[in-house]
């Protein structure tokens, strides 16, 4: 059967999801393009290893493709995708024999950001990555969902399956810990910029 080509420039997310659910791989490629950095970042925050994060990202998209039919549109597509990414990465972390702590602090494993900064901005970015690597994997993921992806507590509950009170407690503790680490890591000038 001839596949119907889709005009990527004219497709919106809802249309792409509907097309991808029928097996249209071009539509699914468009969705990957939209979400690859988000999924990779979420996976990396949990696994803290470039290769494993890529593997988890790939698994996430494959699972998403296979289960697109079960996505009912009740939540945002990104929330649904994050839920798969989170569970995939956590499951991979549990399978891993090497303890997470052994991989912490390995700066060479930190992937580049979209916009590699230099100077103070670069310092802040590096300090943030270092601070996140010192949080438990689950907490680092929750912090990433809350501050980077701007998910609400309710959405994080949907993604992680944790209770709302548990998410709030984790966010509170992580925020405190992050601020402590950042204050220690950042130069005084950079910290002043954050406070502004």
């Amino acid at each position, binding site marked *: *059967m001839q*596949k*119907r080509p889709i005009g990527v420039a004219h497709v919106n997310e809802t249309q792409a999801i509907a*097309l*991808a*659910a*029928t*097996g*249209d*791989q071009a539509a*699914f*490629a468009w969705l*990957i*393009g939209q979400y*690859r*950095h*988000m*999924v*990779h*970042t979420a996976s*990396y925050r949990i696994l803290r290893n*470039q290769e494993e994060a*890529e593997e988890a*990202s*790939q698994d996430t*998209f*494959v699972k998403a*493709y*296979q*289960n*697109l*039919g*079960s996505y009912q549109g009740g939540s945002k597509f990104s929330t649904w995708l994050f839920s798969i990414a989170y569970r995939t990465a956590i499951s991979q972390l549990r399978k891993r024999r090497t303890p997470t702590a052994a991989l912490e602090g390995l700066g060479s494993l930190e*992937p*580049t*950001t*979209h*916009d590699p*900064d230099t100077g103070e*901005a670069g310092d*802040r*970015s590096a300090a*943030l*990555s270092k601070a996140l690597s010192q949080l438990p994997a689950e907490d680092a993921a929750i*912090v*990433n969902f809350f*501050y*980077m992806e*701007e998910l609400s507590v309710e959405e994080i509950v949907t993604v992680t399956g944790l209770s709302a009170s548990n998410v709030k407690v984790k966010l*509170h503790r992580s*925020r*405190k810990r*992050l*601020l*402590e680490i*950042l*204050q220690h890591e950042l130069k005084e000038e950079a910290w002043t910029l*954050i*406070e502004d």
Partner: protein
Amino acid sequence: MDAHRGLNDQDADKALRDLFRSSGRLTAPEGLDARVLQRIALVNRPITPAAGLIPTWVWIALAGGFAAFVAYIYSGATTDTVGRIERVLSSLPRFPIGDLLSSPWVLLTACSAVAFLAMDSLLERTDRMHGLNKARPL
């Protein structure tokens, strides 16, 4: 309140959100898209939950019928329940399964059905191995 350099919770949230925003997301590895597409070309098409062979309303009707049956059994407060069940069961039509299975035609039909199902499963698996599953029509 986070007693941290005088920041309250809201200020701390804002500061961290700004920091995350300025740091940006991590970049997915080059070629991730291609590798995912390569993998999904080999796996089965999206799984859409199949509609059940028996519609939901039939299940509801059956459940209602069963509930009514149970209610009927236990409705008589003074009646012996076991006796009542036996009476209800004996009033049901009997299905002579032993007679049916003794017929060679029935056995032949059952064997053919099993053979067809086995062949269908084998062909399905072969298609999947060779990535021959076609996209569903739009």
